[in-house]
């Protein structure tokens, strides 16, 4: 019903030769979702990077030669990455209807206008190449450095979250024997 009304309105406005923004104050109701803020774009990139780390840990934990103690240690680190991802998702508020680079999962577990019911748990990557401690250390280091590079433009509380996550990644490097 709403969709039909909006379509009808657009047709009426088009026939009259004017855009909806010339009729209404504020956001253009027919102009599509508003552009994303830099913080949202940065958040999406950081979430994607965290998802990549999660996949790497899941692959490493799934390695057949992994000892039980080593698997437990890696699982602890994986859980912390999942906590990071959940906090990042919780801060992601994007316009409804915007799929974004996260494949339409934006806002899951948080306050996103698009809503959602699934948890932001990443799935494993069947068939991906083995991931050892050296690769994980390198990925953690790279991720920490990338997070620090985002600090200059992020709003203060988001910058603090990024810095805290980067510090956690640094402790993971040491925990992995770095």
């Amino acid at each position, binding site marked *: 019903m709403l969709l039909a009304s909006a379509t009808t309105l657009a047709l009426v406005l088009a026939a009259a030769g004017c855009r909806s923004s010339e009729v209404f104050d504020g956001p253009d109701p027919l102009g599509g979702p508003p552009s994303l803020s830099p913080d949202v774009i940065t958040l999406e990139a950081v979430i994607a990077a965290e998802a990549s780390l999660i996949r790497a840990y899941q692959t490493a934990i799934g390695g057949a030669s992994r000892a039980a103690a080593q698997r437990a240690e890696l699982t602890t680190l994986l859980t912390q990455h999942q906590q990071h991802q959940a906090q990042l998702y919780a801060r992601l508020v994007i316009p409804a209807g915007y799929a974004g680079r996260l494949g339409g999962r934006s806002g899951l577990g948080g306050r996103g206008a698009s809503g959602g019911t699934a948890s932001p748990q990443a799935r494993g990557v069947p068939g991906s190449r083995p991931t050892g401690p050296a690769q994980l250390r390198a990925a953690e280091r790279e991720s920490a450095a990338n997070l620090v590079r985002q600090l200059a433009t992020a709003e203060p509380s988001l910058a603090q979250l990024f810095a805290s996550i980067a510090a956690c990644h640094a*402790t993971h490097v040491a925990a992995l024997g770095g």
Partner: protein
Amino acid sequence: MTSTGSLPALQAALAAEDAAIFGYGVAGAHLAGSRQAAAEQDWTGHNRARDTLAAMISRLGAVPVTGQAFYQLPFPVRDAASAVALAAYLEDGVTRAYLALVAVSAPALRDFGAVAMQASAERAAYWRGSTEAFPGLPASALLPVRPASSS
């Protein structure tokens, strides 16, 4: 966690470093072997950090806060276990102080705080024997999230 001015955040970091220097002096007296060596190394690192922060504050035209002669310890330190706990506690305090620097408006100070808190978080993890998901962040700064789905 809110944005703060550069100078108060730098002074707070300096105060945290001074407290750590005092605390490591206490902790080191109850440690031996590799843990004592680690405590000495960390004590030296905190002294260097204090000098760096004091210089940064002076360059801003302010007088660096002076360390106290004595600090009230958070709990009695009478053996190696409590000394190790104190070292972790001190590093947590330093990490929180540097995290405040990440909220200031100057990008260079944000980077400085972020890198410094990585070092203190690593030291805290060493003394605690485990890593934490959000070093320096109080629980109140974390948003409620939906529990993970099993599906």
